[in-house]
C-alpha cells in the first residue's frame, strides 16, 4: 500500500480499503481487461497445454519403445528419443536428411512465393495492367484449392514410367517420358507449393504497397534515380516488414506441409520432416513423431524471432505518411498486354491446369487413356456404361460423398463463426490494451496454433478431450471437438485480421458512443462489429477455406458419421478410385470458390468490403 508513493504522505492520502476495492471494481468493469484475462486463460488451456503435452511426450517412454527399452515402463522420463533422433545411428535417416530436404524445399518455395507474390502485388496494385480487380480475385483462387490438388494434377500429368502403369498425360500426348527430376522430387514439390502459397506474399505485399506513398518513388525520380534504383533503394526497403511477415507465414506453412511432398517425394524417396512425422506416427512411434513435430515448432519460432530481429525494429517505416498521400498508377506502356497474358498463363498453370485434369480424371473410364471414347459421366450422374465400376455409385446418390460434404460445410461454417467471434474479441482486447502484457501475450498465444504441426495437434487433442478437461465434458467423438480443434487451429487467421481491422478503428469511435451513454454490448453490436466486419470476414473466409480441405488435423478425430470431404477424398485416393477422387475434389473446389465469391459479393453489397 505504501508502495504507491503519493507526493505528500499524509494519512488521508493513503488509499483506503474502499478505494482499493473501487479500483479493483473499476478494473473489472473495463470489459477489455476482463475479457483479456478470460481469453488468455482459455487460449492458454487450448494452446499451451498441447504444447506442454507435446514436449512431455518427447521426454517419456512410449509404448512403442518397448523394443528398445525393454526395462522401462511407459510414462517414465527418458532422453531416449532425443538421442535417437539427434545423435543415434538413425539420426541421419530419421532427422538430418529430411530436415535438410525440408529446408531446401521450404527455402526455395518461399523464395519463389515471394517473387510471384510480390511481383503480382506490384502489377495489380501499382500498374495499369488490364482488368485489375478481376486479376485480384483470380490470383487468390490457387489458395482456395487444397495444396495437394496441384500435386495430384502434377503427377497425373508428368507421371513417367518410373512408377509404371498408365502413362501420364504428358507421355500420352507427346509420346515422351518426362525425366524423373521433372516428375518427382524437390523440383515439382517446390513448384507445386509455390503455386499454392504465393498468395500469402501477394496479400501481405499488396496491402503494404497500397500504404507506400508513391511520392517516395517520385522523390527518387526527382533526385535522378532510375526506375530500377527507385525500386531497389526506396520501395523495396519500405516493403521489408511486409515481405518479412510474408516470408515467415509462407515458410512455416511450406515447411510443415505434408500432402505435396508425400505425393511427389515418395517415388524417389525424397523425405521431408512432415512425411517423417507421419511415418513415425504411422508406426505408432509417437516419441519420434512428437519430437520431429517439436523441431518444426522450434524452427518456426526461430524464424519468427530472426525476422523480428532483422526487420521488426523498422516497423514504423510505412506509417509515416501525412496529408497529401498519393498512390500513382504506373503506366506499363507496351508491356501492359504481354504482362497480362503472362499472369493469365500463370493462373492457367496454377488453377485451370489442375482443375481440368481433375475433371478429366473424374470422367475417364480407364486411367491413362485420354481418348474421347474413354469418357463417361457415370461417376457424376450415374447411368453406368461399359467399363465403369458399377459398384461405385455416382455422386448424385453417393451417400458417402454427400454426407461428408454436408459435414464439411457444417464444420467449416461453424469454425468460421467461432473463429470470427473469437478473432474479433482477441483483436478487440489486443488493440484496446495495446502495450500491456495481456495484449502481447494474447497476440502471441493466438498465433501459436499456426506453428503447431496439424497432425501432432490432433493427436494431442484426443488425449486432452477424451476425458473431461477442466469444466469441459469429454468431447471425444463429438462434432463439437472437431469444431473446437479447427477453431483453435485457424484462430491465427481471424485474430490477425481482427487485430488489423480493429487497429483501423479509431478509439474515439467507441468513446463517442461511450460518452453518449451507450453500453459496451450495444457499442460492439452497433458500431465496432459492423465496422470491423469487412476485415473479420476475410479472416473467416480463410478459416472456412482451410477447414474445408483440412485433413491431417482431424483425421484422428473424425468418426464415420463426422467424416469430411477431404477424408473421403483421402480414402478414395487410398482405394485407387481416381474418378471419385476427381468428383469429390472438383466438388470441394467448387464449393469453396462459390462460397468465396458469394460472400464477397454479398459483403460488397452490404458495404462491408471484405478484402
Amino acid at each position: 500500500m505504501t508502495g504507491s508513493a503519493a507526493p505528500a504522505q499524509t494519512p488521508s492520502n493513503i488509499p483506503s480499503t474502499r478505494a482499493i476495492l473501487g479500483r479493483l471494481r473499476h478494473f473489472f468493469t473495463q470489459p477489455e481487461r476482463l475479457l483479456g484475462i478470460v481469453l488468455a486463460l482459455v487460449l492458454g488451456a487450448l494452446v499451451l497445454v498441447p504444447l506442454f503435452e507435446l514436449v512431455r511426450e518427447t521426454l517419456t517412454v512410449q509404448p512403442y519403445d518397448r523394443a528398445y527399452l525393454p526395462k522401462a515402463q511407459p510414462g517414465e522420463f527418458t532422453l531416449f528419443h532425443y538421442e535417437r533422433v539427434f545423435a543415434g545411428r538413425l539420426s541421419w535417416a530419421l532427422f538430418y536428411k529430411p530436415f535438410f530436404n525440408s529446408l531446401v524445399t521450404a527455402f526455395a518455395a518461399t523464395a519463389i512465393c515471394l517473387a510471384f507474390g510480390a511481383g503480382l502485388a506490384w502489377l495489380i496494385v501499382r500498374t495499369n495492367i488490364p482488368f485489375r480487380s478481376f486479376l485480384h480475385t483470380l490470383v487468390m483462387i490457387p489458395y482456395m484449392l487444397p495444396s495437394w490438388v496441384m500435386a495430384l494434377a502434377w503427377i497425373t500429368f508428368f507421371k513417367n514410367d518410373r512408377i509404371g502403369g498408365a502413362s501420364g498425360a504428358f507421355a500420352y500426348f507427346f509420346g515422351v517420358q518426362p525425366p524423373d527430376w521433372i516428375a518427382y522430387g524437390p523440383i515439382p514439390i517446390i513448384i507445386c507449393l509455390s503455386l499454392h502459397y504465393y498468395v500469402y506474399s501477394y496479400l501481405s505485399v499488396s496491402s503494404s504497397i497500397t500504404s507506400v506513398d508513391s511520392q517516395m518513388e517520385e522523390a527518387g525520380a526527382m533526385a535522378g534515380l532510375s526506375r530500377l534504383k527507385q525500386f531497389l533503394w526506396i520501395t523495396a526497403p519500405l516493403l521489408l516488414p511486409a515481405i518479412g511477415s510474408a516470408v515467415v507465414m509462407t515458410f512455416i506453412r511450406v515447411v510443415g506441409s505434408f500432402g505435396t511432398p508425400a505425393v511427389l517425394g515418395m517415388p524417389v524417396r525424397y523425405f521431408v520432416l512432415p512425411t517423417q512425422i507421419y511415418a513415425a506416427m504411422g508406426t505408432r512411434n509417437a516419441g519420434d513423431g512428437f519430437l520431429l513435430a517439436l523441431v518444426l515448432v522450434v524452427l518456426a519460432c526461430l524464424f519468427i524471432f530472426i525476422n523480428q530481429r532483422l526487420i521488426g525494429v523498422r516497423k514504423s517505416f510505412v506509417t509515416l505518411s501525412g496529408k497529401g498521400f498519393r498512390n500513382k498508377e504506373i503506366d506499363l506502356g507496351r508491356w501492359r498486354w504481354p504482362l497480362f497474358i503472362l499472369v493469365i498463363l500463370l493462373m492457367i498453370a496454377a488453377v485451370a491446369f489442375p482443375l481440368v485434369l481433375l475433371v478429366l480424371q473424374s470422367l475417364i473410364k480407364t486411367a491413362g487413356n485420354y481418348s474421347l471414347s474413354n469418357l463417361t459421366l457415370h461417376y457424376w450422374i450415374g447411368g453406368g456404361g461399359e467399363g465403369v465400376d458399377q459398384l461405385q455409385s455416382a455422386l448424385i446418390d453417393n451417400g458417402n460423398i454427400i454426407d461428408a460434404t454436408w459435414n464439411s460445410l457444417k464444420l467449416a461454417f461453424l469454425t468460421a463463426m467461432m473463429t470470427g467471434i473469437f478473432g474479433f474479441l482477441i483483436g478487440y482486447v489486443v488493440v484496446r490494451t495495446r502495450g500491456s502484457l495481456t495484449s502481447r501475450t494474447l497476440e502471441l498465444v493466438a498465433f501459436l496454433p499456426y506453428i503447431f504441426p496439424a497432425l501432432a495437434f490432433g493427436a494431442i487433442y484426443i488425449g486432452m478431450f477424451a476425458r473431461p478437461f477442466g469444466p469441459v465434458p469429454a468431447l471425444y467423438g463429438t462434432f463439437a471437438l472437431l469444431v473446437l480443434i479447427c477453431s483453435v487451429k485457424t484462430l491465427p487467421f481471424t485474430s490477425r485480421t481482427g487485430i488489423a481491422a480493429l487497429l483501423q478503428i479509431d478509439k474515439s469511435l467507441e468513446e463517442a458512443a461511450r460518452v453518449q451513454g451507450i453500453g459496451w454490448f450495444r457499442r460492439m453490436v452497433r458500431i465496432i462489429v459492423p465496422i470491423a466486419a469487412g476485415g473479420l470476414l476475410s479472416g473467416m473466409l480463410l478459416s472456412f477455406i482451410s477447414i474445408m480441405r483440412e485433413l491431417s488435423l482431424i483425421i484422428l478425430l473424425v468418426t464415420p458419421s463426422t467424416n469430411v470431404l477431404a477424408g473421403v477424398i483421402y480414402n478414395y485416393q487410398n482405394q485407387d478410385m481416381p474418378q471419385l477422387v476427381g468428383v469429390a475434389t472438383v466438388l470441394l473446389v467448387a464449393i469453396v470458390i462459390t462460397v468465396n465469391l458469394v460472400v464477397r459479393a454479398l459483403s460488397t453489397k452490404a458495404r462491408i468490403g471484405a478484402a
Partner: protein
Amino acid sequence: MSEITLRNITKSYGSHLALPSLDLDIPKGSFVTLLGPSGCGKTTTLRVIAGLEQATTGEVVLGGKTVYSSRNGVFVPPERRGLGFIFQSYALWPNMKVDRNITLALSEAKQPAHVIKERLAEALAKVQLTGLADRYPSELSGGQQQRVAVARLIAARNSILLMDEPLSNLDAKLRTEMRTELKRLHRELQATTVYVTHDQVEALTMSDVIVVMRDGVIQQQGSPYEIYHDPANLFVAEFIGDPRINLLDGMLETVEGERIVRFEDAAIPLPTSLQGANGPVTFAIRPENIAIVERQGPFSLQAEVDIVQPTGSQTIISLTVKGHRVTALIPRFETSLPRNNIWIEFPADQLTFFDKGSGNRIPLKQSVVGASQAA
C-alpha cells in the same frame, strides 16, 4: 457556481507523469479553453473529466456530484456522466448515415420516436445540414462532417460539452467560419464548454477563460485579454500571438531617478512603477506595437527591412535591428518598403519585462496595468 471541479488531479502513464497535480474550477455556462503545445496534457485533462481516462489520484466533481475520487474509490464511468464530447477526428460512425449518427444515443436511451425526429430536425437545422440526413459520413466534406459531430452534440442536449481540437482538421478559412459558429452555438446552448486546442487564435477568439498549460502544469489562467496583454511568463508570451512576440535582451537601469531600459545604443524611458531590480532583463514587444517611422527620432533604432509579407489586411515585416531579428506588423497591405532608411520605435507602455532567470513577468503596479489597457 462551479460546474466542473478538478481537485489535485494527477495522472501517470506508467512512469511518465502526464499531469503532476492539477486544480481547475470551471464556472457554469462558461467557455473555457485549455491551450498549450502538443503533449502538454490537454487531452488527458479533458479525458479525465469525461471519465475516458481514470486519474491516478484526485477528485472530479461535475455539477456538484463527485464522479471520481481516488480516496473514496468512486468512479462513475463515462456512459453515466452525461457529457457531450467532440473528438478531433469527429468520430462519426462510418457505417451509419448522418441521421443515425445523430440519433443513435437517443434511440439507445429509448426516447420516443417523435422526440428523436424533432431533435434530429432541430440539430440539423442548427448546423445547416438539413437535407443531408441520408448521406454516409464518407460522402460529406470535412466541414460537413464537423457539423455532423456538432449536431450530434446538440441533439443530446448535455449541459457540459467537451471538445478536443474540433477544428484542427479544417483548412484556414473554414476554421475561421466554424469558430464563429461554435461561439454562436455556445451562446445559444449556454452549456459549460471545455475546449482543447493548441491554436492560440482559437483560444483568443472563442474563450471566456483561457487556461495555458505546459507539461501538465497550468501556467496562467485568465481572460483572453489578460493572457494576451499580461502574460505571466515568457512561455505564455511566446506561445500567444502570431507572428510571435519579439523578445530582446536589455539592461534595466535607473538614471537620475528615471528608469530606462538600455537596448544596444538606445535608452527607452520607462514608467517608474516597474518593480524589477536593475540589471539584465528580457523585454518583449508584440509586432503590432512596434512603430515604424521614416525619420530618426530620439528613441528610435535604425532597422533594415528583410522580408515584407502582406497577408491581406496586414503586412508582416521582418526587420534586422542591430543584428537582431525583429518582426513588425502593420495594419495595411504593403508590398515593399525601402530597404534601409527605416527607423523603429518601441513605445514604452507596450513593453513587457521578464526576469532573465525565472522567465516570470516583472509586474507593474496595479494602476499602471489599466493604463496599458487603454492604449
